[in-house]
C-alpha cells in the first residue's frame, strides 16, 4: 500500500447510501492521536436529520462535531457537515456554511466540500470517496486529484452501492482504491 509522504491540512470524506457504517468503522479504528483535521460530508435522508453526530460519536476514537459557520478546522477533530447546509473549506482553515441551492439533489453537496478543500489547500488536501448511490462527489474529488492532492476511492467491490466510487473512477485514476480497513491503515500513518 502506498502511504503518501506529504503533510496534509485536511482529510475530506464523502459518502452517501451505505456510508454510515463505513465511516463509523473508519472512525472507530483511528489512532486516538490522529492529528489531521477531518471533514465528513455525508448525504442524509431528508426525514432523519438528527442523531447522526451522536451515532458517529458513539463509535469514533476522535470527537465528531457539527460546526458553526467560520469554526476553525482542528487537528484530530472530525467536522460533520450539518444537514441542509453546504460546507466549504476556506483558505484560512475555517469552514463556511451555505444554504445555496441543492447540487446533484444534495445539500450538503460532496462536490462542494471536496472542491473547496482542493481550492484552499491544493496538494495538502486528501479526499476519500465512499459508497453511495449518486454521482455527487466524483467531480469534486477529481479537483483534489487535479491539484495534486491525494485521492482514495473505496473499492467498488466493497461498497453497498457502488455508483459514487464508479463515477469517480470514470473521471480519473486515484492514488489508491481501497477497502475500508485499508483506508484506516493509510490514515493512521499520515503525518499531520
Amino acid at each position, binding site marked *: 500500500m502506498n502511504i503518501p509522504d506529504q503533510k496534509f491540512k485536511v482529510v475530506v470524506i464523502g459518502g452517501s447510501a451505505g456510508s454510515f457504517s463505513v465511516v463509523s468503522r473508519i472512525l472507530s479504528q483511528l489512532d486516538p492521536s490522529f492529528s489531521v483535521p477531518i471533514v465528513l460530508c455525508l448525504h442524509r435522508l431528508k426525514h432523519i436529520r438528527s442523531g447522526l453526530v451522536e451515532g458517529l460519536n458513539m463509535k469514533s476514537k476522535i470527537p465528531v462535531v457539527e460546526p458553526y459557520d*467560520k469554526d476553525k478546522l482542528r487537528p484530530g477533530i472530525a467536522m460533520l457537515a450539518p444537514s441542509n447546509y453546504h460546507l466549504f473549506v476556506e483558505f484560512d482553515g475555517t469552514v463556511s456554511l451555505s444554504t*445555496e441551492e441543492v447540487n446533484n439533489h444534495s445539500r450538503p453537496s460532496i462536490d462542494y466540500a471536496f472542491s473547496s478543500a482542493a481550492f484552499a489547500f491544493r496538494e495538502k488536501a486528501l479526499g476519500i470517496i465512499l459508497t453511495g448511490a449518486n454521482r455527487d462527489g466524483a467531480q469534486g474529488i477529481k479537483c483534489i486529484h487535479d491539484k495534486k492532492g491525494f485521492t482514495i476511492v473505496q473499492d467498488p467491490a466493497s461498497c453497498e452501492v457502488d455508483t459514487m466510487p464508479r463515477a469517480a473512477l470514470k473521471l480519473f485514476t486515484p492514488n489508491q482504491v481501497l477497502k475500508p480497513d485499508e483506508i484506516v491503515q493509510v490514515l493512521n500513518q499520515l503525518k499531520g
Partner: protein
Amino acid sequence: MTYKEYLRVLKEHTPYDFSEYSDNSINRRIQKVMQDHKMTFDELTARTLSDNRFVEEVVEAITVNTTDFFRDPELWRFLFEKHLSIYRKNGVINIWHAGCSTGQEVFSLLILFNELGMLPKTRVFATDISQKALDKAKEGIYKHQIERGCIDNFSKVFNDPKKGEQILDKYFDVDSMNDIITVKPLLKKNIKFIRHDLVKNGLPFYNKMDIVFCRNVLIYFNAKLQTRIIQRFFDVLFSNGTLVLGAHESLNGFFKTKFEKTGPVFKKSNGFHFRC
C-alpha cells in the same frame, strides 16, 4: 485575472462590494455567471464596466435566495411558546428582517404574532439586496411549498398534527391543484419592503429595533465583515432586543459578552456575560 481582481472591479466601479464575502462560495458563483454567459474574466470585466443592467444581473446571480416557511421548526416553536410574549407590553414591536429574501420567514413570524394576538403591534422592515427577491416577497405568492412539506412544518411549530392544515387555510389562499399558496392580506399590512445592501448602505430607517432577524445571511461573509454587521445589529437593538441567527451561526469573541444566549436566540443585555 482572478475572482479577487474581479471583486475589486465591482467594488471600485459599482455600488456593490463583495470583497469580504466567503471565498469559496463567491468564487463559485462568479464562475457560474461566467459559464452561463460563456465569458472570460476580461469579458466579464468589460461588460461590468460598460453595462449597469448587467451589473444588476450579476448581483442577482451572486446572491443566494433559498428560504422556507418555518425553516428549523424548533426555533419557531421556541419563539412562539417562550419568547415573543416578552414584547406583549410594548406599544409597538419593531422588527427588522435583514436579508429577508423572498419573504417566507417574514410571514412565518407574523403568523406567530397573530396567533399570539399581537399582530397589530408589529411594524416590520424587511430588507434585501435582491430586487427580484423583494418583488416576490411583496407578492407573497409561493409555488411548491406543499410538496416541500410546509404543512408538516406548521404542525411541528404548533406541536399539533391537526394544526398544519388549519394554519395553511387561515393565512393563505390555497391552489392545491397547482401547489400555489398566496399570503392573505391580513399578514401584509404592517410590512415595509426596502431594497438594502447590508454591507454598503446605512440603515434604511431611524427606528430602534426589538427584534432583528438575520438568518443564514452572515454565513456568506468573512469573519471580519460578520463582526461589523453584528456591531450594527447590536447598535440598532433596544437593550432587551432579540437577535435571531441561523441554526449554525453564532456570535464570536467579544459579542458573546454583549448578548445573552436564550434558547436558540440572542438577547442584547447591558451587563457582561462571561461564558466558560
